[in-house]
């Protein structure tokens, strides 16, 4: 089983130069878009991006152990049109408009660092190589809004085990795709983010059963704006930890530098656990606006410690001063 992921295999990217096949895919997609636009009249690319995605085979959400909440789910249209994915622009509406410019097939994730079997995962391995399950999680953004999203994915632990982390590995670093030609946000000359976007977890956090590698939501493969084809979901941490469109996973013996923490260390910590008692300089973290809301019902609810997953994860931080390690 393990061999399947370490044996070198010939992927299209090794035969054809990247720019060539990306262009070819782009052309094919544009051709398709033209056709469907002709068929549907005024269908916009963003509308297609919202409804797109292939059906996935997965086990339904299991209750208990925090794997699933029965709170009202945030509708698909809101989940796919209100996103923070700064590679496509800083406005919440930018990703749905521009993320379709990103090529997600072919896709390769490189697993490296302190592992016995470094190697690569290709899109087929990601979608077909793991038993998929549904997890209905709360997602709490550091900006004090939240959603409830039915993800489809597999525990990150399963992926990591295949590459056999060594005894020295204590942290995991993740890296998002950085492709300027397809990501207009990264071309903004007033942006102060040092691309590519990076995130990290402690190894025990990464191996926790709640930590999910999502490949889909609402039963279908992820729309680009939600981090296709593979993203992290860590439900007890602020949303920015749940890094999207991952191309690199590296195991390390020391804590990696992460994007937001590097940018503003006084605002964003490495841990970034949801914590109503530790305020962010920009937003009070005591309450959250559960989306969708309406002007007549702001849907303001109190934020829970570890986003309501304290029972499952509090033991990971025993004895730590969480106002210092925020």
């Amino acid at each position: 089983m393990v061999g399947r992921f370490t044996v070198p295999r010939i992927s299209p990217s090794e035969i054809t130069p990247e720019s060539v096949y990306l262009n070819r895919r782009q052309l094919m997609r544009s051709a398709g878009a033209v056709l469907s636009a002709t068929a549907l009249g005024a269908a916009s690319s963003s509308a297609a991006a919202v409804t797109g995605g292939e059906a996935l085979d997965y086990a339904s959400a299991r209750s208990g152990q925090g794997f699933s909440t029965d709170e009202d789910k945030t509708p698909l249209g809101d989940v796919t049109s209100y996103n923070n994915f700064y590679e496509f622009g800083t406005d919440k509406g930018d990703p749905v408009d521009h993320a379709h410019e990103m090529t997600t097939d072919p896709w390769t994730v490189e697993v490296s660092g302190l592992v016995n079997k470094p190697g690569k995962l290709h899109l087929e391995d990601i979608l077909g190589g793991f038993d998929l399950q549904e997890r209905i999680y709360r997602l709490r953004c550091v900006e004090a809004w939240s959603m409830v999203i039915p993800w489809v994915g597999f525990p990150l632990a399963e992926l990591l085990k295949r590459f056999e982390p060594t005894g020295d590995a204590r942290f995991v670093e993740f890296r998002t795709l950085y492709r300027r030609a397809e990501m207009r946000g990264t071309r903004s000359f007033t942006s102060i983010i040092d691309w590519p976007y990076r995130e990290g977890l402690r190894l025990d956090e990464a191996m926790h059963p709640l930590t999910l590698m999502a490949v889909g939501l609402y039963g279908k493969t992820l729309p680009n704006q939600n981090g296709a084809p593979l993203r992290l979901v860590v439900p007890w941490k602020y949303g920015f930890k749940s890094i999207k469109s991952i191309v690199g996973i590296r195991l390390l013996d020391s804590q990696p530098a992460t994007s937001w923490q590097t940018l503003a260390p006084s605002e964003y910590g490495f841990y970034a656990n949801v914590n109503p008692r530790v305020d962010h300089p920009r937003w009070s973290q005591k309450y959250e606006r559960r989306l969708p809301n309406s002007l007549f019902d702001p849907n303001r609810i109190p934020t829970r410690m570890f986003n309501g997953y304290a029972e499952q994860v509090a033991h990971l931080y025993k004895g730590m001063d969480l106002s210092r390690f925020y």
Partner: protein
Amino acid sequence: MRGRAIRWGVFILCLTPFLMLAWRAATGALGADPAKTLMLQTGEWSLRFLVLTLLVSPLRQWTGWALVMRMRRMIGLYAFFYACIHLASFGHFYIGWSATILAEELVERPYVTVGFVAWLLLLPLAVTSTRGWQRRLRRHWQRLHRLIYPAAVLACLHLLWQARSDIGEALVYIVMVGALLAWRWRRSRLWHARSRVAATRAAHT
């Protein structure tokens, strides 16, 4: 007669962003987080109208149109109008009209304080915008209404402070407000220099 028609036209034009927001709110087209959309949009329109208000005097000088001067009050009041909706949305959606949370926000989040002070500076300007007050305050009126300068600077700071990774948008407003204030500073220097020359001449004759 023509002036009146133009003024009505501008009035409707300035109200259009509000009407469009109201329409989107009524049809549920404000997105997943309508409260935030309303906040961002009204805040931005308030700043745009502040810039437009500051643009009136230079425009008058460059083009010679007397009519623009007569629009200034209306445009300025619109800046205040959008600032009020902005503030009310914050009060309603973000802090639920809680005085305790407001106090906490003002202390802990300087960008909130700065925005609130900008609104406070605009408040007396809106109140004294009538002809009656203009007459009553006489030359003090003009001095009082220079409060729009710090208000515009604070509004820019309010925006800049909230930029997380991209300061592009804030920079656009900072450059515009900066240029409009620099124009005034230069004008007042020229004016002082000219009156000094006139005074010297008067003394010599």
